């Protein structure tokens, strides 16, 4: 009875000397801080990159260049957002690039034959969604061991179909509205005539992102997506319709590949059967740089966008500095490793934090 055991909680009174277990409390604060910094990892990487490029390049901060970065990042952003949902459920969609190509070809062909904006847009979106749906159904109903397999198969199949339908040639022309959105610029540069700098495609990115924020944070569906990723077995036990959730996630990812196809069509005023080649790699890289985990359940819309911007800014910066384009790929590789390494460190700190909780809990 002589000594008081550490009493309920770290009753850390405002001000005054450190309370009961001072070491634990201090370590706890340190860890909390470190974790906060690490969670801001993707934003920090982007901030650092922007700062650096601003220092070494005069034109980086010009409105024209900002407009270019935004424009170039639009497709990566939209694809990354779809990929994010898939990765949150512990999956991967390797087919988004081919899906983009196929959707663009179909959209352009429909425009060529029907001259209907509505039909062309609907065809591109429907193609994207259908491809995603097939991915999801193959994975879930076909009981394939990992989404890697159906989406890898789809990568080649959709690409082949795009080449077949287009006779391996770019289908020229796209609806004016699509061109307007995909390639348009508003907000004139001061003293630069009436050519705008701000790409209209960015509005599409903002709209898609806003819808996804709403869907992931507001809708029951979004909660289920994260629950399925966090613990699929528990999700089943809790009555969450896991197969439908998975299929829906791949369908939405496909739909967004269709949206990206429209942006690509607009920029080129054409539908090319190779428009999306390798785009899946950018999308996956963006999601990883954005801190999503392949272990599932982790990753946010804003961080995925940040990851997409890291890639776009890096590419832009290396271009501005006149560096060999091949370095871009290597640089992307380095950033991926750095981002994942930060994630690993975060994991370690979190488990330290956990054991600290056990020690200092009331």
């Amino acid at each position, binding site marked *: 009875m002589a000594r008081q055991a550490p009493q309920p909680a770290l009753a850390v009174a405002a001000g005054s000397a450190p309370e009961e277990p001072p070491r634990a409390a201090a370590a706890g604060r340190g860890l909390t801080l470190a974790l906060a910094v690490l969670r801001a990892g993707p934003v920090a990487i982007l901030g650092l990159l922007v700062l650096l490029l601003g220092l070494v390049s005069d034109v980086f901060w010009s409105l024209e260049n900002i407009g270019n970065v935004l424009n170039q990042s639009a497709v990566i952003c939209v694809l990354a957002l779809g990929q994010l949902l898939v990765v949150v459920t512990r999956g991967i969609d390797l087919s988004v690039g081919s899906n983009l190509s196929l959707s663009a070809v179909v959209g352009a062909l429909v425009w060529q034959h029907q001259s209907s904006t509505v039909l062309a847009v609907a065809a591109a979106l429907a193609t994207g969604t259908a491809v995603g749906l097939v991915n999801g159904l193959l994975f879930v109903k076909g009981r394939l061991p990992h989404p890697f397999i159906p989406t890898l198969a789809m990568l080649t199949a959709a690409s082949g179909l795009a080449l077949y339908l287009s006779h391996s040639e770019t289908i020229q022309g796209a609806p004016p509205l699509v061109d307007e959105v995909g390639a348009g610029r508003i907000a004139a540069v001061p003293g630069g005539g009436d050519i705008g700098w701000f790409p209209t495609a960015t509005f599409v990115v903002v709209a898609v992102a806003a819808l996804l924020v709403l869907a992931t944070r507001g*809708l*029951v*569906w979004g*909660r289920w997506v*994260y629950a399925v990723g966090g613990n699929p077995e*528990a999700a089943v036990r*809790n009555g969450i319709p896991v197969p439908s959730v998975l299929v829906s996630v791949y369908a939405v990812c496909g739909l967004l590949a269709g949206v990206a196809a429209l942006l690509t069509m607009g920029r080129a005023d054409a539908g090319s059967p190779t428009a999306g080649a390798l785009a899946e790699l950018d999308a996956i890289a963006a999601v990883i740089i954005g801190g999503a985990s392949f272990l599932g*359940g982790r990753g946010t819309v804003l961080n995925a966008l940040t990851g997409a911007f890291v890639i776009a800014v890096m590419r832009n910066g290396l271009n501005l500095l006149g560096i060999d384009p091949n370095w871009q790929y290597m640089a992307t590789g380095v950033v991926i490793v750095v981002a994942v390494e930060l994630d690993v460190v975060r994991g370690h700190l979190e488990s330290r934090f*956990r054991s600290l909780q056990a020690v200092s*809990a009331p």
Partner: protein
Amino acid sequence: MTATSSTSPTSPTPVLQVRDAAKRFGAVRALDGVSFDVGRGEVVALLGDNGAGKSTLIKAISGVHRLDAGSVVLDGVDITAAGAMAVRAHGVETVYQDLALFDNLDPAANFFAGRELAGPSRLPRALRLMRHRQMTDRTRELLDRLQVSLPDLDAPVALMSGGQRQAVAVARAVAFSSKLVILDEPTAALGLRESARVLDLVRRLKDDGVAVILISHSMDQVMAVADRAIVLRRGRSVGETAPTADNHERLVAWIVGAAGHQTI
């Protein structure tokens, strides 16, 4: 010698009746004709060595496994063939050995996983808007009532200690159960202090008239909270008694198989 009656002394009609439960996995007879009752507000401990069939038995009750033979009756309703969701709808909640929490979600999201409060009800469930505030408030209320204190209700449970996580899992079971809570080794990963908190929760459930089936390898804990202990060995029930200090050796003998079947 205590009473031989297999029903609980606290209530005339048991809340749960398991009869001749049998389940095999290939050549393994995980359950080989187990029968027992649980009374209202009674805490029954299931004891037994590793692989004795304890988890299989509770999974058969909770609807995760379907029995090959035998029956499970809850409050007069036959739930032998009911699936996991149907059993839960009948007021039985289970905290599985492997915890089944969503590490990436916060306590409120864990509480309401699969039964999120959301509206409007004319929309399909997936497309309803969640009522975050309501879910957090209800979670806080319940944790307060159970005197569980968590450092941060907005943090994912991954950041919590084993005891805090277990408290969330148990509290979730408590929140939605009206008749029976099943706990499979709820203190296995916990230190002394955190184990004590979980046992407190068990006592509070009992006070609320909710029956508890508790699987534990710790005889001390069983003696501390259980009214009755049932020992399984190789899928059979080999003995049943009140877990008192006097019966301690007998229970251990049953568990390791040093004595034949008896009910004391």
